[in-house]
């Protein structure tokens, strides 16, 4: 147990260093992208004087290294600047939107792990029988259908045809008043105000986007689990387990233990992917998440938004990887000891 703790601490010490790298990267991005932010803010027809003033306000007239240090210092204090176009602080916006995205991402990852593990195990165990063939087809199909496409089909069928789910206009019904603002995070505010009907509305609105993303992610889990289980079933370990007369269900459990590490790794990887890939599904469901917002920022060239998005999602991915690493170590006696 103590060695796991030391291991965790060692990993955690790396986090600030990686965050620094990410901040540097996002700063360089700003510096290297052509175009004048001042023009973006005050328009092409502004006079030289105004442009110069805006540049000075942004600190763009300072030497490169000074800009870099100022930026790092700001990031270190969790200040990610303001949107060029709306002036809203980027950190504040992310703070309100990121939880909304997590309302989709985390359940769809959980769903994907469960569905993927079940389907993948069945596929790996029965790979030569009809079950294996069917799962194989299902996995390929699910991988081939992008989440937004599935989202549109689901909306058409379940919202407009059989009216099982609410119209995809964000998290709440259009007639619903948002909860009193405390944190600015709608689900959290609803919880604080004890407005269960609002939470219920959020859940009802989240189901389809979760299914659309979850099924897509599940296909990837199913594929890795199937590969791991297929390989594990052919190992001397499984052979010995059978030779000792263990029941098949336990034999499968032995095989799945080997797949555990790859499932965990995949969860962290896909979490990272999803942070940046939810944009399209968020757009389709008008979901006020971080992805759709960042996509908008990219399209408009709003650099602080892009930078802030990179720093925050990059940081989250790093943390997810570290947590995963420690978890894998804690679960595997070969690393633990």
């Amino acid at each position, binding site marked *: 147990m103590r060695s796991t703790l030391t291991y965790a601490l060692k990993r955690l010490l790396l986090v600030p260093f990686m965050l620094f790298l990410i901040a540097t990267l996002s700063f360089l991005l700003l510096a290297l992208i052509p175009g004048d932010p001042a023009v973006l803010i005050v328009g092409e027809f502004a006079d030289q004087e105004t442009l110069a003033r805006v540049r000075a306000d942004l600190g763009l007239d300072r030497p490169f290294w000074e800009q870099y240090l100022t930026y790092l210092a700001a990031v270190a204090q969790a200040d990610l600047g303001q949107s060029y176009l709306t002036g809203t602080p980027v950190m504040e916006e992310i703070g309100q939107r990121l939880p909304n995205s997590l309302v989709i991402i985390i359940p769809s990852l959980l769903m994907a792990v469960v569905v993927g593990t079940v389907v993948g195990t069945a596929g790996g165990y029965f790979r*030569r029988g009809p079950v294996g063939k069917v799962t194989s087809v299902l996995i390929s199909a699910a991988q081939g259908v992008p989440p937004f496409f599935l989202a549109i089909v689901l909306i058409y069928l379940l919202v407009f045809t059989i009216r099982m789910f609410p119209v995809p206009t964000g998290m709440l019904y259009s007639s619903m008043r948002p909860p009193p603002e405390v944190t600015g995070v709608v689900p959290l505010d609803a919880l604080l105000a004890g407005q269960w009907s609002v939470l219920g509305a959020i859940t009802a609105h989240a189901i389809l986007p979760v299914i659309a993303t979850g099924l897509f992610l599940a296909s990837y889990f199913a594929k890795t689990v199937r590969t791991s289980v297929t390989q594990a*079933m*052919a*190992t*001397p*370990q499984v*052979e*010995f*387990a*059978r*030779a*000792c*007369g*263990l*029941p*098949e269900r*336990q034999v499968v459990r*032995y095989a799945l*233990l*080997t797949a*555990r590490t790859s499932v965990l790794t995949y969860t962290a990887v896909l979490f990272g992917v999803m942070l940046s890939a939810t944009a399209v599904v968020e757009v389709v469901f008008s979901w006020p998440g971080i992805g759709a917002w960042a996509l908008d920022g990219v399209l408009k060239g709003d650099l602080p938004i892009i930078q802030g998005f990179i720093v925050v999602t990059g940081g989250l991915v790093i943390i997810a990887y570290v947590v995963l690493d420690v978890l894998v170590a804690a*679960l*595997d*006696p*070969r690393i633990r*000891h």
Partner: protein
Amino acid sequence: MKASGELKVEDLRVSFQTAQGTVRAVNGVGFVVKPGDVLGVVGESGCGKSATLRAIAGLTQPPGHIDGGRVEFDGRELTGLGRGGLRRILGNEIGFISQSPFGALNPILSIERQFRNVIKAHRRASARECREIALKALRDVGIAGPERVLDGYAHQLSGGMAQRVVIAMATVHNPQLILADEPTTALDVTVQRQILDLITGLIAESNRSMLIVTHDLGVVAQYCTRVLVMYAGQAVEEGTVDQVFRTPQHPYTQALLAAVPKVGGEIRGLQGGLPDLINYPSGCPYADRCPKATEVCVETRPPMVRAGQGRRTACHHAAGEVAGYAAARS
């Protein structure tokens, strides 16, 4: 009631479907292992020893397939039992010892947990009872500090220790028959002897039997009562160790023994290789390497012929009781 525990294998056939074609790995092997017998199965690498052993235990995995034959244990036909029926026999009445102990043990579960699973697979027992049983089993295989081993994991063990643990697990229910596939190849020589002494000791105690695959003729000479020589998936000679080693009748056995500098070493330096197992020869599989081969050898497969006292040979020109052969070697 654990009855006689005789193993009877008849005309066993195993093949592997590969991209190149169907590999005929085992082609009509048959033999009997009686209680008290320690049957050594020898032959070059690739001649179907492991495939035979797995088929007996119902552990053949795709792309392998049992094409035919019968395996009878203790009067019951194993081949028709199905997974569930077989499961109750494996680990309980038949113990299986793998070649690589680290491959066999689960790296993620503690040794105690694995023992508990194996014990509970065949009897009701509380966690405490399981621990007691496992501790005893570990002591029986000569492990001095069984508590520490039980609380630990596979990777903390040395190769010899790990193989002792595997043996303890495979024999925790006192099986009548032990199947062992080169149980000591992964270990160094001194440990090899200790392990073999250990396994054969377990058997000698109570008239149990064992089938051991090995490429070490010295092991056969020292530990086995009978020997089965395999070539290209066929049994070519069978008899007591004394009979086969003193007066080998099959040219392949003779070559095998001649390739060992002295009984006690490993097989090496045999000329040529196994025949094509995909386009399996219709005559004697050894014909293309055999110095005695004649036309009849290429055309018809020699049947396994009984030569009294449980001695059998499959060769058209088998040497009789050639006293001169043994004399020439000593």
